[in-house]
């Protein structure tokens, strides 16, 4: 049981690193696999848990996302701020 919790934590941490498009694509793949392939009980549970985790990761990413704006000029990249006086 302790092991399992540690694994979950590890999986979760792994997902936290994943960019949205990869997490989303993996989630789609897992659902496809579950819907079309015959898997063992263990594999199924594992896929389900990974899918759940990816799902929450995707939703979190969407809800927490904040648009980043940068500026590229001849001098290089810098942060961009709207000039509110404009």
């Amino acid at each position, binding site marked *: 049981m302790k092991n399992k919790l540690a694994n979950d934590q590890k999986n979760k941490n792994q997902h936290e690193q994943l*960019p*949205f*498009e990869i997490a*989303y694509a993996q*989630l*789609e793949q*897992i*659902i496809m696999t*579950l*819907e079309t392939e015959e*898997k063992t*009980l263990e594999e*199924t*549970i594992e*896929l*389900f848990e990974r*899918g*759940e985790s990816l*799902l929450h990761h*995707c*939703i979190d*990413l*969407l809800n927490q*996302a*904040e*648009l*980043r*704006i*940068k*500026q*590229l*000029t*001849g001098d*290089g*990249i810098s942060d*961009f701020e*709207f*000039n509110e006086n*404009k």
Partner: protein
Amino acid sequence: MNNLPFILTQYWTVSELNRYLHDLFEDDLTLQDIWVQGEVSNLSQPSSGHLYFTLKDSSSALKCVMWRNTVMKQTFLPREGQAIEIHGSVGIYEAGGQYQLYSDLIRAVGEGALYQEFLRRKGLLEAEGLFNLERKRRIPKFVKQIGVITSPTGAAFRDIINTINRRFPLVEVILAPTVVQGEEAPSQIIDALLRLNQNISPDVIIIARGGGSIEDLWAFNDEGLARAIVSSASPVISGIGHETDFTIADFVSDIRAPTPTAAAEIATPNFADLLINLSDYRIRLERTTQTFLDKKQWQFNQYQHRLSLRSPLHRIQSNQQKVDETYRRIILVMEHYFDIQRARTNGLEQKIASLNPQSILKRGYAIITHLDNRLVSSVHHVQVGDELNVNVQDGEFSVRTLPSRSN
């Protein structure tokens, strides 16, 4: 000669003639869709809002009118003496008996020339195959970096940022600021495109500008820019002007969006749609897993049942049952046996009872014995004067023998 037929002359009314001419003009396709060039004179706009003027060249004049609601839609209005090009239809003003040009579009001379140049370049580049659909690239489904080439102060950039922020704020926008009109614009835009490709290589590049006249948008008809867009490594979405504005950049870009906002929409998936997809994925994830588990549970139950049928325990139970059954039958048999024995014993008891001497005493017989219990069953057993015991059913008493009366 007098037999010549009498011909009745047909007279037209003025109205009839003007109506006839009106219809004649209206049926002429050339007159209904015509461009005329000339110089503006006698320009007047009374309180009605309609615009009246005369278009002249060195030797001739044409009366022109533009109705108020059309005037309001013009981005360009002529001044006295200006050389203009107008589009419209020629018709008869019946009340005044005048023909005039009903104008729906006015532009300064030169715009038409620009448009001709636009068509020429478009034809050239199209012939080169730069507009071919097969060389156009797809925009990735989920972009991470969006390069935007536009003016940092324009409404177009704000529209793009607001749209991306609303639809898919998971991205990074890299603005490559440029001027978007004037002589400098084409080279600046080309530079921005090269810089983005070299330093960032974003998933997609948006080239955008708000609406304006054909001169305002002219930078986007630059041939060099067209070639730069074609050779851009990142796919390019153009969002230039309004829905009705077309530039060369629109034709060579991978996707032409009608406006800057639309360009941002094409570049990004929609937040709300994604959430709907994700909730659909959740349902499918849970349903397939549940179905799988139900199936396994059912299978397990089946196996458990079949296994238990083959279990030694089951055989033991079965044997146990046999033993129990046998035992029950033995018990039955034995009970039956005992019943028979009991009945027999009862019969013997009665027989024995009936043989009991006591039962004879009940019928009035007596048993006579000597005092030493020797049974007296014959006259030879006794002497006169013997004391004898007489047993009757309820007791005994003593008697003494007397001599026989017959002796």
